[in-house]
């Protein structure tokens, strides 16, 4: 089987899609409205093996291959961008621990992460530090064989419910990643509500005031803390959001096809008006192109090697950009109905905007893609 282009067995994919549609898609509007995901949903995702997607089987996970992870993210993005972000951040932290954690960290954290007993959040962004990640101001000092962490993290997806935070801080002038438990004294979680999109992503501001963590809380080494550990986690995040954007684009297209068949104006279905057909054609072509770039990124990951990083950046940049236009056209095709809460396309548009900001904004991807092309010293 060609891992990058052949889908997993059709029956398996259908089953996974049905599960996601039933447990998430059917309630996505309600989650968005209430800005909350009930605990039972996390449990169901864990039972289905979704939360253990990046956890190796020996620690109780499903250890999915890159294409299967991508398809899972696509199906999640199609159902709910907020839940896509749960899978993204939870698997980012799982990946960091599985790939770069010590044996003790793997044994301690991977089984509860796979079982969904602990949800993980990725805490990099700060009130004054977004794209310029190397300027992280969270201070980490060595003390009595452990570390003392002080700083504030903002916009942390699922921070409201996470039991484990992957915190990026500055230690001795170098950036490094630390595992910080929610009940660490000095750690305070402040919910953030009323975002434009990803409204059910249960965002939080996480304030750490002299949080003392054990000496073995650092993931990997100080030397490679940023370039390798945080770098590989961000690369995975880009990959998830690229695929998730394809899912959201597909949802926009599906909704637009349905609506334009049913709605009649000037005595004909909307689908029979050529200017509507033009929008539909662009949606189809862009969704297919984005999916192909994601499949290409999946192939590069399955093969390993240095090209996989730029593959994910290219896919994320393209998918994140086209989905904004697709969602906007989907609302256009729905007219006033598309602006109302009776149809999901208004949510799609709000979520699509966010795809181009998180996991590296469109501008950051453009810079990375161009700099890669000039990569000579």
């Amino acid at each position: 089987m060609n891992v990058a282009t052949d889908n997993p067995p059709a029956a398996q994919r259908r089953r996974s899609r049905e599960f996601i549609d039933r447990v998430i898609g059917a309630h996505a509007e309600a989650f968005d409205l209430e800005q909350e995901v009930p605990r039972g949903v996390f449990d169901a995702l864990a039972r289905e093996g979704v939360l253990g997607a990046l956890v190796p089987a020996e620690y109780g996970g499903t250890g999915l291959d890159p294409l299967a992870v991508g398809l899972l993210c696509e199906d999640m993005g199609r159902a709910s961008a907020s839940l896509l972000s749960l899978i993204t951040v939870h698997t980012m932290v799982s990946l960091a621990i599985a790939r770069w954690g010590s044996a003790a960290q793997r044994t301690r954290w991977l089984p509860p992460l796979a079982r969904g007993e602990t949800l993980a959040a990725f805490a990099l962004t700060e009130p004054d530090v977004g794209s310029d990640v190397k300027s992280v101001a969270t201070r980490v000092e060595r003390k009595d064989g452990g570390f003392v962490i002080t700083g504030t993290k903002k916009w942390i997806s699922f921070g409201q419910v996470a039991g484990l935070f992957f915190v990026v801080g500055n230690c001795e002038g170098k950036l490094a990643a630390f595992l910080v438990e929610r009940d660490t004294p000095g750690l305070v979680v402040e919910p953030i509500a009323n975002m434009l999109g990803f409204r059910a992503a249960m965002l939080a501001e996480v304030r750490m005031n002299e949080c003392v963590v054990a000496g073995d809380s650092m993931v990997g080494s100080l030397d490679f803390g940023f370039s390798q550990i945080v770098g590989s986690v961000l690369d995975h995040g880009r990959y998830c959001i690229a695929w998730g954007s394809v899912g959201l684009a597909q949802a926009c297209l599906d909704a637009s096809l349905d609506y334009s068949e049913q709605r009649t104006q000037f005595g004909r279905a909307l689908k029979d008006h050529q200017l509507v057909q033009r929008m539909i054609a662009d949606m189809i072509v862009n969704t297919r192109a984005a999916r192909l770039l994601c499949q290409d990124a999946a192939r590069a990951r399955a093969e390993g090697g240095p090209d996989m990083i730029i593959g994910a950046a290219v896919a994320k940049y393209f998918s994140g950009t086209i989905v904004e236009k697709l969602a906007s056209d989907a609302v256009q095709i729905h007219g006033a109905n598309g602006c109302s809460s009776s149809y999901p396309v208004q949510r799609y548009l709000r979520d699509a905007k966010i795809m181009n900001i998180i996991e590296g904004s469109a501008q950051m991807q453009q810079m990375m893609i161009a700099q890669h092309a000039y990569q000579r010293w």
Partner: protein
Amino acid sequence: METGEIRETIRSFIGGFIRARNFKDSDNIFEAGFINSLFVMQLILFVEKKFSLAVEDSDLNIANFSSVDALSSFVSGKLVNGSSRLH
């Protein structure tokens, strides 16, 4: 793989990114300011793929990656050791 072949493979990968003609196998690529963080990830992924080995958390020591010489002996050591083939 022979030690000489390992060194040549590494040199040709790193050399592909560096214009300096007088770039030597013993030059510290971090200190010389040759590289950025994207390159560090690419270098590790290259080593893993090319030599079918897994770079582990305990290998993430800057001394292992600082020059063609250092990386060649790191890779040779891993291959002789044979303990961490890429899964």
